[in-house]
Structure formats: structure tokens, C-alpha cells
């Protein structure tokens, strides 16, 4: 059974038809890279999957359960959206760390707030928060930033901030982690450290969807590549196949721009 199944997603903003009949599926532990030029709809697709946008039609299934059916779910309550959203973690292009919290607080904030809804929270407040701190510290250790846990975001480099953002998304143990151009806002010399973290997650079989412009990275790390153009999936398949031997004319055109860059 596929962990994620997207069926016939459509999305328009006013006159602009951004997503047209998008369908794909992925298996547990797979990494899918979505590539394409700006405005091709890849970010909107990711935002639909994350409930940051509501598709006009289509369905999304996670582990076989329908978590979004645009035909019936137009008016989901906030609480329902929140619960369903937790299947996904999101890493943004511009990190979006919370500037008033330290690296560790960024990672633990959501869990700590959620723990307050537990019935035994009042009785075990201290133990619960300590436990969450320990989880947060472990995550920071994994991304190699444990010694920076008390730093504020502005005291960290862009690459470090993005790594903390990844830890923050992982803290909620999502089924699928989504990345929206995670290295596009970084200086070239800082992209490496972020890609390394993502690669290590792939090695641990984390299920991931990555919107990216890093073709070499997509080819090496992703199991499957989806090439989008003008709101449709033009080509999709094994990452080596799509990037090294694209079948569609449009895909070849797009990738030719990258071949000269030492890919």
C-alpha cells in the first residue's frame, strides 16, 4: 500500500489554473523530488499536500485513509485540518524559524503546546517537558547542532537555521516530510550542509517529498523524480532515468540548462 496517494488534484487562483489533474503515489521510505521551472506549480502542489492551500478538487490518501477529499471537505474545521496536517512536516524555503525562541525551543514548541492538551499534563508537567526537551536535544544532535541549542535564529548561519527547521519538522514525527526548495535561499557554500542532513534522512528511510533545483542532488538522493511544467506532471519515474535520459521534449529542454553546470 502506498503511504501517499494523490489523485486528480486541481487548483486555481482566480483565473490562473495552477495545478491540472495532478496524480502520483509514493511508497513508505521513498524520496520523491519535484523539479520544474518557477511557476510550474510545484510549490503550490506541496502547499496543497500540507493543507496550507485547499485544492479545488481531488483526493489525498495517507496509508490508504482519505485525509482530504476536496469534494466533501471544503469546510473542514480548524481542528480537523490540524490533525490531518500532522501527517506532514514542512520545511520552508526561507526557514521561518521563530526568532523569539532558541534553536531548542523552536524544535520543542509545538510538542510542548500539544502536551498541554494531555489529561495528565498538570500532574506530570515537569517530567513531560523534560522528556520533550530530551527529544529536542537528540534531534539537534542528529543534525549536528546540539552545542547551538541555546542560540537564537539570528545567531545562526542560514544553513544552520535550515537544519534547525528540519529538526523542528521532525519533532512531530510526521509520516512524510516535505521540503519547499530547502536550499534556494542559501549561499552556495551553505547548501552542502543542508543537503547532507536531507541525505542522511533518506538513508534512514524517511519518506520525503523535495521540491528542488538541485538536479544532481535529486538524481542521487531521490528514488523518483517528478518533472512539472505549467501545472501538469510532464514526466515521472526513476530519478536516474528522468534526469539522465528524459523522454519528453519539454523535460530535455529544462534539464539542458543544468547539464553545463557540472552536474
Amino acid at each position, binding site marked *: 500500500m502506498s503511504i501517499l496517494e494523490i489523485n486528480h488534484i486541481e487548483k486555481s487562483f482566480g483565473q490562473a489554473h495552477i495545478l491540472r489533474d495532478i496524480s502520483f503515489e509514493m511508497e513508505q521510505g521513498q524520496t520523491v523530488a519535484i523539479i520544474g521551472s518557477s511557476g510550474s506549480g510545484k510549490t503550490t502542489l506541496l502547499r496543497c499536500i*500540507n493543507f*496550507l492551500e485547499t485544492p479545488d478538487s481531488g483526493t489525498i490518501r495517507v496509508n490508504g485513509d482519505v485525509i482530504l477529499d476536496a469534494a466533501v471537505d471544503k469546510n473542514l474545521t*480548524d*481542528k480537523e485540518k*490540524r*490533525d490531518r*496536517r*500532522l501527517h*506532514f*512536516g*514542512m520545511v*520552508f524555503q*526561507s526557514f*521561518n*524559524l*521563530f*526568532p*523569539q525562541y532558541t534553536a531548542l525551543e523552536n524544535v520543542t*514548541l*509545538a510538542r510542548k*503546546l*500539544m502536551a498541554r492538551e494531555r489529561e495528565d499534563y498538570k500532574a506530570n508537567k515537569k517530567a513531560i517537558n523534560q522528556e520533550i526537551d530530551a527529544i529536542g536535544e537528540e534531534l539537534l544532535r542528529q543534525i549536528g547542532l546540539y552545542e547551538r541549542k541555546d542560540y*537564537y535564529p*539570528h545567531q545562526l548561519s542560514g544553513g544552520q537555521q535550515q537544519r534547525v*527547521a528540519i529538526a*523542528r*519538522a521532525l519533532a*512531530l514525527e510526521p509520516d512524510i516530510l516535505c521540503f519547499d526548495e530547502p536550499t534556494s535561499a542559501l549561499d552556495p557554500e551553505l547548501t552542502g550542509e543542508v543537503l547532507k542532513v536531507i541525505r542522511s534522512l533518506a538513508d534512514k528511510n524517511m519518506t520525503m517529498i523535495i521540491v528542488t533545483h538541485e538536479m544532481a542532488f535529486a538524481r542521487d538522493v531521490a528514488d523518483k523524480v517528478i518533472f512539472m511544467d505549467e501545472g501538469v506532471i510532464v514526466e515521472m519515474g526513476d530519478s536516474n532515468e528522468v534526469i539522465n535520459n528524459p523522454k519528453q521534449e519539454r523535460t530535455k529542454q529544462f534539464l539542458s540548462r543544468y547539464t553545463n553546470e557540472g552536474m
Partner: protein
Amino acid sequence: MIQILVGFGPMMLKALGQTLLLALLGLFFACIIGLIFGLMNVVKNKACNIIATIFVDVIRGVPMIVLAYFIFFGIPYLWNNMLGIGGMTLTALTAGTICLALNCGAYMAEIIRAGIQSVDKGQMEAARSLGLSYGVAMRKVVLPQAIRTMIPSIINQFIITLKDTSILSVIGFPELVNTTKNVVGITFKSFQAWALAGLMYLVVIIALSRLAKMLERRLNRGRE
């Protein structure tokens, strides 16, 4: 000057106290009104947005002196004479507080709206993607950032409101301007009395803005 100071100083100090009392009461309720209407302006709900916009437009479009007369004389007249219910009296302090709270509240709503909108949209999205509800995301993530940018404007509004209490002398509240008028009426020493009144405002307002600067620096300490 000495004669005014000795003879009427305590009376004017007491009036200054009344001015501060009125300003504090007005500001307290203005903060509540401002927060309510400011938030109503940013939530994704057309009805809330419209109500908040109308409130701000109406209050900002009416001079405070008209608002003061309207509340102090107009509302009881409507209640007692036109509706014939009767029995309503507003003290100058109550009417003055309402007037200040509404007036300052409208400006505060605008400051709070602008402050919230100045926070990057990605902050709300990141908070929501972590499963926080709109209210919690607003309280824990967006508002703390908005408040830092709002502080200078809020302090400025506090100072304006403190000075605006002088307008409420028209409804007979015994604040500093009203009392100074009485002092002049008794002594005919316009220059000395008004100079003293001005000095009193000046001292309080300079102290307040110094305090504001300190607070601002403190809030920004350690952050960019």
C-alpha cells in the same frame, strides 16, 4: 510665579493627578479595545474586518471634542429624553474615560493591525504546519514579534492620549487645564499659571518617553 506655586501648586498637582488617572483609565480600556478591533481586522472573516474598519473610520473621522460632548451630553439625552427611559447620569470621569478609550482604541487598533501584518506570513504558516491552532499561533508566534515593532508607536499614542485629556476640560472634568483656568480666573496671572501647567505636562511626558526608550532598548536586547 512663587505666589502661584505656593498658593495653587498643591491644587494643580492634584489636578495633574486627575489628568494621570484619566489617562491611565483611558489607556487601559484603549488597549483592550485596540486589541479586539486590531485582531478583528486581521482575521480571515469579512464581517469582522468590516466592523473593525467602520469602527476605526468613524472614531478617527470625528474630532475628540465632538465625541466628548456626544458621550457626555448626547447619550444621556438620548436615553433620558428621547427614549424616555430616564435615570442616566454620566460622571465626567466615566464619560471622559469612554471618550479617551474609544479615541485612543481606534488608533491602537490600527497600530496593532499594522504590527501583526508586518510579521512575515511564513511565521504563521510555519506555526500552522506544526499543528498549532490559529489562536495559539497568533499568541505564541506572531504577536510577540508584532509587539516589538509596535512598541514605539504605542508609546507615541500613549503620549498623545495623555495630552488629549486636556480636551476633556470641556465636559468639566477637574484635570489640569480646567484647574489652571480656575487659577487664572482667581489670580489673573495667566503667564505664570499656564507656564506652570505646561511645565507639569512636560515633566510627565519627558519622563514617560525616557521610560519608553529604556523599555524599547530592553526588549531589543540581544536580538538583531
